[in-house]
């Protein structure tokens, strides 16, 4: 029975809970058992509270027995990336500088999940402050890829990806600044969705690069991703960059198909990938063709410059966003004989090497005399990337490319070469720079049995079409 419960998607779980075939407590117990088995191996979580989850389950069963109608995520065990503010769990961003800090407020997405009766089981591991592509940059633990415990789950939302992949949670929430939802989804064989910038409120997300950060779901299926996306999208008056548009309906149109849709394969991004990843992209293209879409090739060379521009813009914003961790008000404080010494000692001890590297990169890029050469130039490249996408979307409705050029790499393999690590993001970064939506869909495994992901990209606010196509690819490849 337990194994069966873990197989159910959100819709099926809801049906079985409604028909009283299973209780919410039984669901949580099944997941608790799975966590007990998997977590010691995978190390996906930074904090867990299954007792609280069970209390919430009991309450939901009570409410259901009293005839109440529950929310759309009732009984769904959810893992939150530990850079989302929660009053019920500490929020550390996997950094020593915030060890033990519990926010006095919930992120807007957390409130929305709770309003839909989602059950948060714990907070998941990440690269410190979401800076990384492997989750190795966590100050607390290294999360393992459930497909091969010697390998990374990707990052930075590696904890949420691994938790969903190993069925310790039905839904994971992550944040995506340069691919941090999609790349780990790809490396762990789950679906990862980054919404249009402004679709999901960033209020309560510990900022990495404010103009790029978006929160989104990691799930076992496209349908589950659509359900969660519907629940968390929509305007929030507490985020000035949040779009006014109401959350679109995504689940209902899933089955409308892709007949007549024009899809472009981005050849120069395909070229960055290993042959096995390339083959998966082509299989996905074939599925789309068979479903009635027209598929053609397009090369968007400007997208390749995105990587360099990203590694200026993101560190620049991060250098400012992370200034507040100074030991004065919360988190770690190291002793110092002056305020300045205290701040330096706190930040020296509290931040890990990758975070320090990016703060230095960003500080440099914003400095007098370098600002024009770095920050301004990077913004121009960002415009160039947007222009390239606009040109592509004159000819195509959606674009198709790999999510990650490779499958999961070994733990430690790229730690000594940050630039090689940064290259993992070449296919995902352009969507963050343009603010457009993108989704990674599992597309088989390589010769070593490691998951491969393919990525669909669409113009701003094209989520409905994007999900329809993702659903078609998912069904065709199964």
């Amino acid at each position: 029975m337990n194994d069966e419960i873990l197989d159910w998607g959100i819709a099926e779980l809801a049906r079985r809970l409604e028909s009283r075939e299973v209780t919410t407590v039984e669901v949580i117990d099944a997941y608790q058992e799975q966590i007990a088995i998997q977590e010691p191996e995978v190390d996906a979580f930074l904090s867990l509270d299954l007792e609280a989850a069970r209390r919430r389950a009991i309450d939901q069963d009570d409410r259901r027995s009293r005839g109440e109608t529950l929310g759309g995520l009732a009984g769904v065990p959810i893992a939150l990336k530990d850079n989302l503010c929660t009053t019920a769990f500490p929020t550390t961003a996997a950094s020593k500088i915030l060890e033990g800090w519990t926010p006095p407020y919930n992120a807007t997405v957390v409130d929305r999940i709770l309003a839909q009766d989602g059950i948060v089981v714990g907070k998941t591991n990440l690269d410190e402050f979401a800076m990384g592509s492997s989750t190795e940059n966590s100050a607390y633990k290294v999360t393992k890829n459930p497909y091969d415990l010697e390998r990374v789950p990707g990052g930075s939302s590696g904890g949420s990806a691994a938790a969903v992949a190993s069925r310790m949670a039905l839904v994971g929430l992550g944040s995506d600044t340069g691919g941090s939802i999609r790349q780990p989804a790809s490396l762990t064989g789950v679906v990862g969705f980054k919404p249009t910038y402004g679709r999901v409120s960033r209020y309560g997300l510990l900022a990495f690069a404010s103009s790029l950060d978006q929160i989104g779901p990691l799930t076992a299926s496209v349908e589950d991703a659509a359900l969660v996306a519907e629940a968390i999208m929509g305007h929030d008056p507490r985020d000035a960059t949040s779009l006014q548009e109401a959350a679109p309906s995504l689940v209902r149109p899933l089955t409308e198909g892709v007949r007549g849709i024009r899809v472009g394969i981005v050849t120069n991004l395909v070229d960055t990938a290993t042959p096995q990843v390339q083959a998966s992209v082509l299989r996905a293209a074939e599925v789309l063709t068979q479903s009635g879409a027209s598929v053609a090739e397009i090369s968007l060379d400007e997208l390749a410059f995105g990587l360099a521009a990203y590694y200026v813009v993101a560190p620049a914003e991060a250098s400012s966003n992370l200034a507040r961790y100074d030991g004065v008000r919360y988190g770690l404080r190291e002793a110092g004989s002056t305020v300045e010494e205290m701040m330096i000692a706190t930040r020296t001890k509290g931040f890990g090497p990758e975070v320090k590297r990016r703060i230095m990169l960003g500080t440099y890029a914003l400095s007098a005399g370098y600002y024009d050469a770095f920050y301004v130039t990077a913004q121009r490249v960002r415009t160039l990337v947007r222009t390239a996408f606009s040109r592509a979307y004159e000819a195509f409705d959606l674009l198709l490319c790999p999510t990650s050029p490779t499958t999961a790499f070994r733990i430690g393999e790229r730690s000594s070469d940050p630039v090689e690590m940064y290259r993992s993001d070449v296919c995902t970064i352009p969507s963050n720079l343009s603010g457009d939506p993108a989704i990674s869909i599992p597309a088989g495994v390589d010769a070593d049995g490691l998951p491969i992901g393919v990525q669909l990209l669409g113009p701003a606010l094209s989520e409905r079409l994007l999900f329809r196509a993702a659903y078609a690819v998912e069904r065709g490849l199964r």
Partner: protein
Amino acid sequence: MKTRATTGPAEGWEYVIGLEVHTELKTATKLFCGCPNAFGEEPNTSVCPVCLGLPGSLPVMNVQAVDFAIRVGLALDATIQRSQFHRKNYFYPDMPKDYQISQYDVPINAGGHLELPSGRVIGIERAHLEEDTGKLIHRGGHGRIESAEYSLIDYNRSGVPLLEIVSAPDIRDPEEAKEYVTELRSILVAVGASDGRMEEGSLRVDANVSVRPIGEAGFRTRVEIKNLNSLRSLVRALEFEGLRQVHLYDDGEAMIQQTRFWDEARSVTGALRLKEEANDYRYFPEPDLPPVAPDPDLIEDRRAELPELPSTRRGYLARVLPDLSDDLRETVIADACWPYFRAAIDANITPARAAARCANELTALLADIGVLTPARFVEVLALEDRGELGASQVKILLREACVDSTAVPELIAKLGLSARDVGAIKSMVAEVVAPFADEWERYLDGDEKIAGFLVGQVMRKYGRQISGADARQALVELGDEARKSAD
């Protein structure tokens, strides 16, 4: 531009001064959150995740602050434009995010000018929005951060909206700097953007000052003096700093561009540590806030609603009373006085009389003005204009009209004041003066000293019934009449 006599720091030298005035806008809530914008609360009670800069919090623009900024911009004849917020990055414990959200190259108000009472026009470079910091309280040592044993931080002020108004380097001496701040303050109060309370820190001034030999065209190296929190400090700091710079040049020493602070106790400016001024603020556009694009309709509405500004009142006065002294003029145009003066002019009261009664009698009564409305004020002045009441009677009547709402004619009767009384006083004076024929002739010939003697005689006899001023007034009127009939 009018010229004006200025006072240099030393013979042959002149000041070049530009001021940055920070004013707290009196919005209901802070600039980026819903916390009350209140002064004097218990420390750290008007705070929330946003103004404490807690991880994950985001700023949301307060539209009322934009509204106030627009009103000030209009009053200063600035160009109101689509503006962008920037982050000004530097570490300081009173700043919870370790960056300040401010405006940089595209402020909401660009350009503009302010006309001083002297007629001199001072250029305005910009007036931009930014958030205030928290307040540091240093304990022990000399009350400065370096020597303190420990420091406390009150974040109630963190996120309070500020408008920073930057003048061009057009100000030429410390008194003019004072005049500028006073005039700017009255404008800020008039448009309702600020309560103008310098003592509560709602108006704070930084001054950029350099000196140059009179006649030299370019600007020399300037020094910024921070946090001048009273007009007195402003004038004294500028005087000290001007002289210090002249002495440096006289001694052949190099002037370095630096930030200094005014040490009130020692009456000197002192240099801040070099480290504190070596800041590279690494400005970049604030990604959490979209540009602020004021609605053109709102701007036009605000333009139409703009209250009468001091310069407009001065212009009006220059037409109706060109010879008014500066002091009288500034008293009359004050907000409390002005409605009374305007009502008097509109009712065709002699302008000089209206100005005199406003400046002398009315200002003394303003604190307890009670039921003395502009209409009643005008009614009293009209009686004086028609010669039905004397000056001293008017004074008594105005004082009484503040506390007694009885209609003016009944009030006159009640107080035993009447037009006949003027005649009665004249009769008393005439009666007393009659035996002093020689003195009377000397008085009529313009011997003012003898007037005192004659009034003294009147007072000796009727001192209990009439005042000296009334007696003198009656004497003047009798004299005028006598001279007139002699013509």
